[in-house]
């Protein structure tokens, strides 16, 4: 909640350069994006310039000079009217909260001043209304959602599982609204895709990120007064920040970004911009090729050699590299059976099962509850990885540890070799003793949403749309959910879990498999024991 005074003060401290305030006054700029989108009356051009304009002239924002008044008069007035009407409606609804809320808000001191001064003064109300626009329009667009959103937040804090308290970051971004204007459209789209698991899987996310950054670099022009090497890094960091608000970055993404930043910083400032950009794009291309595409082929090739005729290969969820391995082995004419273990809520194994079955493999599919049966006649376990930690632990989709454990601890049977397919770009120097230290928590509502009866109707949209309803209904009247959830009975017990005291849902994304369960890590540099991870990581980062 940055008050308009703050960025204006910021700009006073660095007044001269026109484009430079952009990063400095990022919060207002970020908030202006939705206001521009939703209220087209607001003139676009003057707004970013406003802090700069204001800054030299009036530091106390209330004393308003009357220049630049004419063109802005309409919009503040309209905005104010709208705001007033809404405010009145809101007041009528809940007086007490309004009275406390408004002065508490940052624009509190500004708004009364603007009102008293009437539409005469341009600067302050413009700033004030801009602030209002920033603050309130996006919220009011969703009408009565304001108090409810707050309630949800309050509840949400209780809903955090205490042990994982450190893993609950800010809530994931739901829209592109509020994203900084520096964020490239390709990155915007990618962020949402990652959030919705459209782009899912460590390598896929890494490749998609790099491709998006390539487009960012192609569209990038170095502003005057800075060098590409220095400014592009900050420019990229905006993109990265945005991506990480959509979904925490994967290890591979982090590694790729680190390599890219290193490449940027190593560019000689004397190199012309166009040439530097092509160099960087080539770097990205070769990075993807070397570290992921070719690496995958190498891994698939060498891992496929491990598959023998008559094997029963168990795999968990839907790793792209495992899929490639199995298909490669199948193409080599090997006869084996694949048993896919899957789990809620992502059901990534379904896609893998479909692909493999279409390719003609013999596939058996079961959920994690049937794990001990699937492992019984298995001869090998192939696992994908999200990352390999420096202490040799395999950090992968939640449930992987169970599969590896069952393979190793089969009662009365011979241990089944557990083979992990992992590119070295997924190696990290982080260490993790258990799955709690490093992890990612997904939206717990996913556990509620994905119920088979929904998919029966094959209409995910109504289900998704209906989902918030029980929540809101539950807030106003606890007895409400029953009629709403009657048609979809499976949803009823958990639909209003946020309102149920003491009930928490936990939706972890990853777990850490102990190193002793992993027999071999197949990388593009060869097949290694898990203890070799730190050495390979050091080698690959020093290169």
């Amino acid at each position, binding site marked *: 909640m940055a008050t308009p005074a703050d960025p204006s003060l910021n700009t006073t401290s660095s007044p001269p350069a026109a484009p430079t305030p952009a990063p400095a006054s990022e919060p207002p700029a970020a908030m202006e994006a939705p206001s521009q989108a939703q209220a087209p009356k607001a003139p676009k051009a003057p707004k970013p310039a406003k802090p700069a304009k204001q800054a030299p002239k009036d530091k106390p924002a209330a004393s308003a000079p009357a220049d630049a008044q004419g063109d802005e008069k309409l919009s503040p007035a309209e905005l104010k009217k709208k705001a007033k009407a809404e405010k009145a409606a809101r007041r009528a609804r809940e007086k007490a909260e309004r009275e406390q809320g408004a002065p508490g808000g940052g624009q509190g001191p500004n708004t009364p001043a603007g009102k008293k001064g009437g539409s005469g003064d341009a600067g302050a109300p413009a700033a004030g209304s801009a602030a209002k626009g920033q603050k309130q329009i996006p919220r009011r667009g969703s009408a009565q959602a304001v108090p409810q959103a707050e309630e949800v937040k309050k509840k949400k804090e209780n809903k955090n599982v205490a042990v994982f308290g450190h893993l609950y970051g800010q809530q994931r971004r739901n829209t592109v609204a509020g994203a900084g204007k520096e964020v490239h459209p390709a990155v915007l789209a990618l962020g949402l895709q990652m959030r919705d698991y459209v782009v899912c899987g460590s390598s896929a996310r890494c490749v998609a990120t790099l491709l998006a950054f390539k487009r960012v670099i192609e569209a990038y022009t170095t502003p005057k007064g800075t060098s590409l090497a220095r400014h592009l890094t900050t420019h990229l960091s905006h993109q990265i920040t945005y991506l990480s608000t959509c979904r925490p970055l994967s290890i591979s993404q982090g590694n790729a970004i680190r390599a890219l930043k290193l490449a940027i910083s190593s560019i000689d400032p004397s190199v012309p911009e166009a040439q530097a950009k092509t160099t960087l794009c080539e770097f990205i291309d070769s990075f993807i090729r070397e570290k992921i595409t070719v690496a995958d082929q190498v891994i698939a090739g060498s891992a496929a050699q491990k598959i023998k005729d008559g094997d029963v290969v168990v795999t968990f969820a839907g790793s792209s590299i495992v899929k490639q391995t199995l298909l490669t082995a199948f193409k080599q004419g090997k006869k084996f059976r694949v048993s896919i273990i899957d789990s809620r809520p992502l059901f990534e194994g379904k896609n893998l099962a*479909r692909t493999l079955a279409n390719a003609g493999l013999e596939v058996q599919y079961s959920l994690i509850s*049937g*794990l001990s*049966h699937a492992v019984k006649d298995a001869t090998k376990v192939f696992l994908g990885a999200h990352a390999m930690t420096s202490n040799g632990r395999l950090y992968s989709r*939640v449930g992987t*540890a169970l599969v590896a454990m069952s393979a190793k601890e089969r009662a009365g049977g011979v241990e089944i070799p557990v083979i992990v397919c992992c590119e070295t770009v997924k190696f990290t120097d982080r260490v993790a003793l*258990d799955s709690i230290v490093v*992890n990612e928590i997904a939206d717990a509502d996913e556990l509620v949403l994905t119920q088979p009866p929904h998919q029966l109707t094959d209409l995910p949209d109504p289900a998704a749309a209906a989902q918030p309803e029980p929540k809101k209904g539950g807030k106003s009247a606890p007895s409400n959910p029953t009629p709403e959830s009657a048609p979809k009975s499976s949803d009823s017990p958990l639909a209003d879990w946020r309102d149920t*005291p003491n009930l928490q849902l936990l939706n*972890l994304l990853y777990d850490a498999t102990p190193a002793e369960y992993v027999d071999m890590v197949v990388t593009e540099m060869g097949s290694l024991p898990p203890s070799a991870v730190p050495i390979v990581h050091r080698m690959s980062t020093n290169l």
Partner: protein
Amino acid sequence: MVVGNIVRRVLGLIRDEAEDDRDGDFSLSDAGSESQPQTPRGGDDPSDFHGSDRGASKPISSLATHPVSMFSLLSHPETETSLPGTPATGSPSGRLPGHTQNRDIRAEVLDGINEIIDELGQVDDQIAAYALDHIHSNEIILTHTSSTTVQKFLLKAAHKRKFTVIHAESYPNNHEATHATVSGTAPNDDEILSTESFQKPLIAHGITVILIPDSAVFALMSRVNKVILGTHSVLANGGLVAAAGTRVIARAAKVHQTPCVVVSGVYKLSPVYPFDFDSLIEYGDSSKVIGYEDGDLVDQIDVQNPLYDYVPAELVDLYITNLGGHAPSYLYRIVSDHYRKEDISF
């Protein structure tokens, strides 16, 4: 399986009565063997049929014993009257001979059956009485599926102590019931309202309940103090047959050195020794694993949905029955207390 256990106990009861009446009589073995071939038919059919709905197996089992026991009772007098020696040699105990004695047996057997039914009704509460010995403050308990025995056990402890329960949802066979248990909404089936549905859920007692998917069990196990499992039936070697997914949980508990406690009524103790685990496992509806929208997949791939897991005895640290806590290795003794060896194999 549970039904079979009850049948065995009823049979044992009848034998006891018969033995009391004609102690040492040679015709006893005849009477026993005469009634035996008939009971399996009564016993096996319901066990096969009801074994699939595990949640309901307990009340049904007590009901199912009625026809079985009546059947064997009806057959009992017949065999005795058909045996020429019975009325004459039954008198040494000093009781009245002939029909009055048979009626006496029948009444006593019925009393015995009523006792068993009473026991079945009280089992959960009796087990719950041990809860405070095993659950302490601020513990983190992990459980699985919506077993009423486990819920009562935890509820009992919840009256006195504050702890945290992590509940794995056992998708896809029991997750709806688990969700209902966890959130405290009664399952909206049209079944008879049982006493359980009137009970307050754990969350109403201020117990924090965390619902997790089954896959997250390993990740959380390092923070769990105790695993409490319900079961479908317990075998004589200390292993158990429980809902699918239990074995992995028990295994994960073992790996993390977390004690694994199984709560089970004595009626679930089965004298069967598992030599062929696969025969104990039932497979369920594969449409629960892959929904109808993925129907094209079903043709191409082999979808499996086992309902039960066999958990070997070494994964279990403690059994709590209505008789108290036992080590898995001690179970065979309880088994032999409850069943007669003639009845072990139908």
